[in-house]
């Protein structure tokens, strides 16, 4: 408002590790992750909550990091796609052909992880509902569904 950068200190658990970051309190979690922490696995597709590319887990639930302020994260637990490396969801996306340009993929991986943690055996309809806010322009979603099926049956 004054044109002067305001900075706060925020402590939270990031991918299982206690983390403290200095960032403007009005920065989004997405800005903080990408621009300050250089954790660029979380993607910015719209910065407006419309594409799901920036999805992270906040206290285990899928949320848009572009619509979460860093100051809202204080004391909470954040998991980004980097925290899911080696997971079966990552593996099933890679093996099902669900990845083309891949820019949407981390957001999908995180959203599917959240779904399967809450509901290990979802129906196709439930999968579609869980992923309806994640846009992919490349795949036509067919192989994304295949990937989720693979992750479920694993």
């Amino acid at each position, binding site marked *: 408002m004054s044109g002067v950068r305001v900075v706060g200190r925020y402590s939270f658990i990031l991918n299982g590790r206690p983390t403290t970051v200095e960032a403007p309190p009005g920065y989004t979690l997405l800005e903080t992750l990408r621009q300050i922490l250089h954790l660029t696995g979380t993607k910015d597709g719209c*910065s407006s909550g419309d594409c*799901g590319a920036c999805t992270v887990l906040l206290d285990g639930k899928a949320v848009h990091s572009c619509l979460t302020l860093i100051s809202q994260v204080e004391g909470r637990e954040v998991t980004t796609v980097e925290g899911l490396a080696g997971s079966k969801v990552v593996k099933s996306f890679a093996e099902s052909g669900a990845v083309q340009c891949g820019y949407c993929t981390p957001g999908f991986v995180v*959203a599917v992880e959240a779904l399967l943690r809450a509901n290990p055996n979802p129906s196709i309809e439930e999968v579609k*509902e869980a992923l309806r806010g994640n846009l992919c322009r490349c795949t036509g979603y067919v192989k994304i569904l295949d990937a989720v099926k693979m992750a479920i049956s694993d």
Partner: protein
Amino acid sequence: MVSLYDIQVFTPRTLEEALELLDKMGGRTKIIAGGTDLIIQMRHGLAPRRDLINIYGLRELRYIREEHGMVRIGALTTFSEIAASEPIQKHVPFLAEAANTIGSIQIMNKATIGGNLVNASPAADSLPPLYVLDASVKIVGRKGERTVSIERFYKGYKKMDIAPDEILAEISFKIPDTDGRGLFFKHGLRLGDAISVVNGAVWMRRREGVIEDVKISLGAVAPTVVRARRSEEILKGAKPDDENLRQAARAVIHDISPIDDVRGSAGYRAEMAVNYVYMALKRLVMGR
């Protein structure tokens, strides 16, 4: 798109603290709850950039309670919680359905019902069910609290009966009669998430072959959500035959005043209001 690099965010730990903060700087600040609307609006320059009072973490405003024939929902309850809530699913499944369509899962996990209400979009999907439920909102300030009916709360386009030093704390409504049935509908331009071109809710109770009671609300077709009172009058005491349903549906135009925007023309909106009310009535009558 601007970055909010230069704002302050204050995070009170209790409602009491929040009210104190508001008392001190209510006019210059804005309350942020889930933030899913406010952050976009501020970053796109659609709302003035202000310092924020962040109440997202206030647990005391996050609950769903059933007591004395009433359901009470704390303002900071998320739509995921509402959609999954047992009392809501049991007593007002159409509110659960509306909660399920307000946006993606990511939005539902973060957006709160109180935030949605004070954002005051006439297209908000949570509102039409609350209108047919004749819900009330509880507003608290340092000087005390008051309860206002939802219809009174909205005074015009984005105009609400709430002062800068007050917080919307709770939404409540009487559990409707068990022999009635409600239904939520929404017209979006795709099957995935989309802002409603028209939305609404219908609640109906039939007895001995006639419609004993009916309530119809419509969103996105006027500066605020509206009740289609003319249509309700036509239906009360009437037989649920096709002719009556059609006539009642056509009558919604007396209570709406749609406008053109990127999602549709006023003319199309009016037709959709009529047709959706017809389809909803028909589905309630047919039991499908």
